[in-house]
């Protein structure tokens, strides 16, 4: 007991010095928004977690675009400055997305492209708005993303209201042209924002056009057994089945329908997770054939799209909407930086707001943003025919006639 008691003050000082040093490391890294050198662009996607598949494809699309822009001489208005991708992983969680935005702000990014899922986009756009970082939303179909008055947020692709509305119009046209063989409908959707929102909209609008929505079934993510749902479809026997879900559930639902020999007059999906995916067509050709989907798609007559498809397939990857939407979003951003003649965030936000970019291969026409939403953005109607995905409507982009009703 002769030993003095541990010197709490000295220990406290030692610890607080360490803490202060730690805070210094965290707190004062100079905010580098250099006026020369590469232009930093945040590429933020959920590359791990349950959205990893889509997140990685999104990242791929953005990286291809950045490589192409740099190879073509960078941003000319800024003396050929190169674009540097600052990669971020939202880990499929909104709060991690926010942390990544904070980090990217610290790292001095001029803009952010991402973040695939609606729930993550809601959080990241808002976090980026604090610093007025221009945020180009690649997919995020929830319309609330562009309805909150955030000046920094720009969505190039359509939201689910436009997609669902167009789906209803095209479906009605297709059915009318075929002599109205379909009258009853059943909707199978996943439980989150996208599936539920789409299903609500469809079941509200379709009766107005004379269709009867017999039943709406919601399923969890993930669902690995669709036997009961398909038995229900069999019992209700609708003319049309409308699925609105992600890749795995979509594929499983259709496979189970095939197994149980359930063949409606059409499987007509809205933003179907698998229908417009070459992966699905390759893996399950017999199930995929005939499926109709209203989804993000490129102008099939545009050579640039076909060249990109070849390039992506050459990399042994599938040419999905994640890839080409991110590719286009980076180009949209590059155009804005070019016109802003600046890497300054405010200038890029203004350039995006006044963007009339037509150098893309999407069926959108020149960009025009109202409250952050690209007004011309619309989906196309696709059908899997002879193991390929063909555009069937509208006629301007159609590669072939719709096969409806489908006879297996």
């Amino acid at each position, binding site marked *: *007991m002769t030993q003095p008691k541990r010197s709490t003050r000295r220990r406290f000082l030692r610890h607080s010095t360490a803490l202060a040093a730690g805070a210094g490391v965290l707190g004062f890294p100079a905010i580098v928004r250099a006026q020369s050198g590469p232009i930093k662009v945040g590429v933020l996607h959920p590359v791990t977690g349950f959205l990893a598949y889509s997140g990685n494809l999104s990242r791929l699309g953005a990286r291809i675009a950045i490589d192409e822009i740099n190879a073509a001489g960078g941003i000319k208005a800024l003396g050929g400055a190169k674009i540097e991708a600052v990669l971020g992983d939202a880990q499929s969680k909104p709060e991690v997305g926010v942390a990544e935005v904070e980090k990217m702000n610290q790292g001095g990014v001029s803009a952010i492209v991402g973040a695939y899922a609606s729930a993550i986009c809601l959080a990241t756009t808002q976090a980026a708005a604090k610093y007025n970082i221009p945020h180009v939303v690649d997919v995020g179909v929830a319309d609330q993303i562009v309805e909150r008055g955030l000046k920094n947020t720009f969505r190039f692709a359509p939201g689910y209201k436009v997609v669902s509305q167009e789906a209803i119009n095209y479906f009605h046209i297709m059915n009318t042209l075929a002599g109205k063989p379909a009258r009853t409908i059943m909707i199978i959707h996943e439980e989150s924002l996208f599936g539920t929102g789409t299903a609500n909209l469809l079941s509200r609008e379709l009766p107005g056009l004379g269709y009867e929505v017999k039943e709406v079934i919601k399923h969890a993510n993930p669902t690995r057994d669709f036997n009961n749902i398909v038995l229900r479809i069999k019992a209700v026997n609708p003319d049309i089945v409308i699925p609105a879900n992600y890749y795995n559930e979509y594929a499983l639902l259709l496979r189970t329908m095939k197994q149980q020999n359930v063949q409606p007059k059409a499987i007509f999906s809205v933003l179907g997770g698998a229908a417009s995916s070459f992966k699905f067509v390759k893996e399950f050709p017999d199930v995929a054939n005939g499926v109709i989907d209203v989804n993000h798609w490129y102008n099939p007559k545009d050579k640039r799209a076909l060249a990109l498809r070849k390039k992506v397939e050459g990399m042994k990857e599938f040419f999905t909407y994640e890839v080409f939407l991110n590719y286009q979003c980076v180009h949209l951003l590059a155009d804005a930086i070019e016109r802003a003649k600046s890497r300054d965030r405010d200038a890029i936000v203004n350039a995006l707001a006044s963007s009339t970019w037509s150098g893309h291969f999407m069926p959108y026409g020149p960009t025009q943003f109202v409250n952050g939403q690209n007004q011309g953005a619309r989906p196309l109607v696709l059908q899997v025919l002879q193991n390929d995905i063909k555009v069937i409507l509208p006629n301007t982009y159609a590669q072939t006639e719709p096969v409806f009703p489908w006879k297996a």
Partner: protein
Amino acid sequence: MRELAAIAVFALAVAAVPAFVTSGYALNVVIMTLYAALLGQAWNILGGFGGQFSFGHAVFFGTGAYAMAVLQVKFGWNAWAALPAALALGGAMGALIGALSFRYGLRGSYFALVTLAFAEVFRILANTFDFTGAGVGLMVPLAATAARMQFASPAGYLYLILGFVVAGFVVSWWLKHSRYGAWLQAVRDNEESAAALGVDVFGVKLRAIVISGVLMAAGGAFYVQYLHYIDPHIAYGLGASVEALLAPIVGGMGTVWGPLLGAALLHALGETTRNLMGDAPGINLAAYGVVLVLMVSFMPRGVMGLFQARGAARGSTHA
């Protein structure tokens, strides 16, 4: 008393952070660390001090979060008025689950499974009812004003979460030093002996789960105010439950400082692995997992266990 002073010093030190640190990134790290510490403290009261391991603390988190969002979005309440209601509902949920499971003597893995099941049930309910926004979730309208518990500067959120964490500390300290806390720890160590000594086991556990529920609901309320969006998966999913138990397990269960220490370590580890291995997807998570496994295997009593062991060794040397 020394511990109370330490809590006060901690609170003052963290409160001073915004005066020195302007970086949004660093402040976000501090805020999210405190947030994880709060969830950890909530779990620690029931799991650490009370020995009742819950795998479904998300049920309280989600209830607080949804109460906060529903009252604001659907009923037009002010966030400051919604907060006490959210906390009360979190406590009520604790009372409900506690009454049902403790009444029937559920312990150990049975109790863990029941809490997990409750969280799942509420996830499905939140997914179904319209007033929770069903699968679409609820979005709290943006209004960066303190009058609506939204802050233009991260400092505001830091003070809010710090307030909750300090409350968590004070409760933990009280559990360590009060008669009730002694009963709770007696129940944890040996329920039968405690009962034989006249401790009202049911009442003691029930009170613990109510307190734990209130604190966890505060975490949920904070989440909604900070990120402005909640859906059934975020609210009642496994994520919140795991986050709540990870910090005290790593930091040291049944200790006052364990949850904060665990949260700080986990965040430091998460940020470091993310910053070091940013470009290869998933490598950081794998590294995080490996370190976590090592920590749990070699430090079963958490990081606080190391301090205690050192303290004990020192004590015996000098005795």
